[in-house]
């Protein structure tokens, strides 16, 4: 019993158990509706995790994340439909395109501090939205892009064929990319590079005085972040099979922001928790319509004033309090 408890308290075993449980979901859950909700949660979790990298760990309020999500989604769809590329090359190429755009936008906006970056990226998000809506020959304008095919099946050894046209195939694909994202993020956060990100967040002056190129650090964080959000955009495109300009708008940015803030800015698991809670509540409270959005707003304001580290941060400080009492 004791060893079992010990095993459970180890992060890695706990992680493996969670992974195993999630892998069981498509087998246990038969409802198409809930599978759909879970897949969306996986896709949006990736987006939330990537926003957290630049915003939570590097302290730069990127308000164009929806725009980059949209660029990744549109690029994937158009590469697959117009150039007949397969899903995997399209996924990578779209992420590269998004990264280049991110780099070009980061260069002028990241040179400045705080407010300018937030405003500049928000304006850029609007440009992306307008381009998606008006550049009809490329994006299909307000009608959008339809008929995006699912990734073609891949065959593994022993005659196993993974099909992505099924809900469970899509579920595993999204879960796989979420794990890759988590792995990358974990490695970055626990490295010298991640330490530089957090150093920039705390004080740019001190950080440049100890020989770290703050501009380069911010660019690296930003480009990595938009590379990853492009992956989630690609998943969204092939899963839903249809895109319209709204998917590239700042409303998407705000929603992903809500996931991150509620779950916990600058924590590893927070953005996922936030995505799960908001998505599930959103589905359950759908009938409330606009009142739901008022509630979103209230949650953002209240959380940021009273619990700025979100749910994960709240839990952490609670743990610390308990630990301090035990001592």
């Amino acid at each position, binding site marked *: 019993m004791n060893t079992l408890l010990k095993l459970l308290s180890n992060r890695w075993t706990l992680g493996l158990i969670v992974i195993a449980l999630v892998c069981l979901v498509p087998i246990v859950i038969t409802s198409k509706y809930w599978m759909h909700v879970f897949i969306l949660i996986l896709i949006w979790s990736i987006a939330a995790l990537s926003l957290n990298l630049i*915003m939570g760990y590097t*302290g730069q*309020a990127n*308000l164009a994340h929806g725009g980059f999500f949209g660029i990744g989604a549109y690029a994937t769809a158009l590469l697959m439909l117009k150039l007949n590329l397969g899903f995997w090359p399209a996924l990578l190429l779209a992420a590269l395109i998004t990264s280049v755009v991110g780099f070009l*936008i980061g*260069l*002028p*906006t990241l*040179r*400045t*501090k*705080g*407010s*300018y970056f*937030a*405003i*500049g990226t*928000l*304006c*850029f998000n*609007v*440009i992306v939205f*307008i*381009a998606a809506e*008006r550049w009809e020959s490329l994006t299909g304008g307000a009608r959008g892009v339809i008929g995006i095919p699912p990734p073609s099946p891949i065959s593994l050894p022993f005659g196993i064929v993974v099909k992505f046209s099924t809900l469970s195939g899509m579920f595993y694909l999204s879960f796989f990319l979420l794990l890759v994202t988590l792995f990358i993020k974990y490695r970055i956060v626990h490295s010298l590079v991640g330490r530089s990100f957090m150093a920039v967040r705390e004080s740019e002056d001190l950080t440049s005085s100890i020989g770290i190129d703050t501009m380069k650090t911010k660019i690296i964080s930003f480009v990595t972040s938009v590379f990853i959000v492009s992956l989630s955009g690609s998943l969204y495109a092939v899963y839903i099979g249809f895109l319209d300009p709204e998917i590239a708008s700042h409303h998407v940015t*705000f929603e992903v*922001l809500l996931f991150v*803030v509620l779950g916990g*800015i600058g924590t590893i698991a927070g953005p996922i928790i936030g995505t799960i809670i908001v998505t599930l509540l959103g589905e359950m409270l759908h009938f409330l319509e*606009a*009142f*739901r*959005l*008022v509630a*979103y*707003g*209230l*949650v*953002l*304001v209240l959380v*940021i*004033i009273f619990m*700025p580290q979100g749910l994960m941060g709240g839990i952490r400080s609670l743990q610390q309090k308990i630990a301090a009492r035990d001592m």
Partner: protein
Amino acid sequence: MDLLFQQTLNGIMVGSVYALVALGLTLEYGILHIPNFAHGVLYTLGAYLTFLAVAALGYNYWLAMACAMLVLAVMGIVIDRLVYQPLIAAPHLNSFIAAIGLIYIFKAGMLIIWGPDFKRFPPINEEVINFFGATVTIQRIIIVLVTAVLIVLLNLFIKKTMAGMSIEALAQDREGALLAGINVKRVETMVFAVGSAMAAVAAALISPIFLVYNTMGDAVILKAFVIIILGGMGSIPGAVIGGYIIGLIESLGGAYLSTDYNEIVAFAILIGVLAVKPTGLFGTRAH
């Protein structure tokens, strides 16, 4: 030639609205050092309130405008007290997030009350006059004149009254102002009241010409941000000049170039300017 003249007049009119919104924003930035993203939803609220007063309650247009100003001034104070003040010591990021929360609350709230449909004012000052060969409605002239008067009044307020001077002192040198015993909270309250009231005026002026709808503030607030970055955050002349410049560029660009991408011009200029001069065209006090 006629087209040029007409479009220039139009540009000045739209620029007036931009200038008024940007003025409120730049004042708030000067004091708080955070961009109040929620300023745009207050502008929209100002339009709805004016509409409500004129169309539903049958108020006189000017009385309706005054009511909208009053309500928004109170709203500005409430927002400052409840949301921005508690965050003053927190990282800037937190204020941005709170502002986005406010946008959600106000936009969804207005959607619940007024719905997604466009609202049209009953005709107001639609008489046409001939002006050097161009025809303009009286309302358009009113927009330009009222804005000009407000800008002059605001300048007098800031340069000549104690309350106004304390705003400028605080914006230019926070520590110095604190040492001189200026009550920061009071100044902040005043700035939010004045800034929000100006957004109400801007909305009340333009909405009889255009329509009133839920997302009308989105583009305006972003352009106002572009303007105050161009003009230098916290700079009053910068906001006014920048407002007219963006108004004219859009109006002339829309007439002679493409109307499709007209909306993008301002944002493209912004990113271009940031690339060349991160502190804005006239700005010295970057933050």
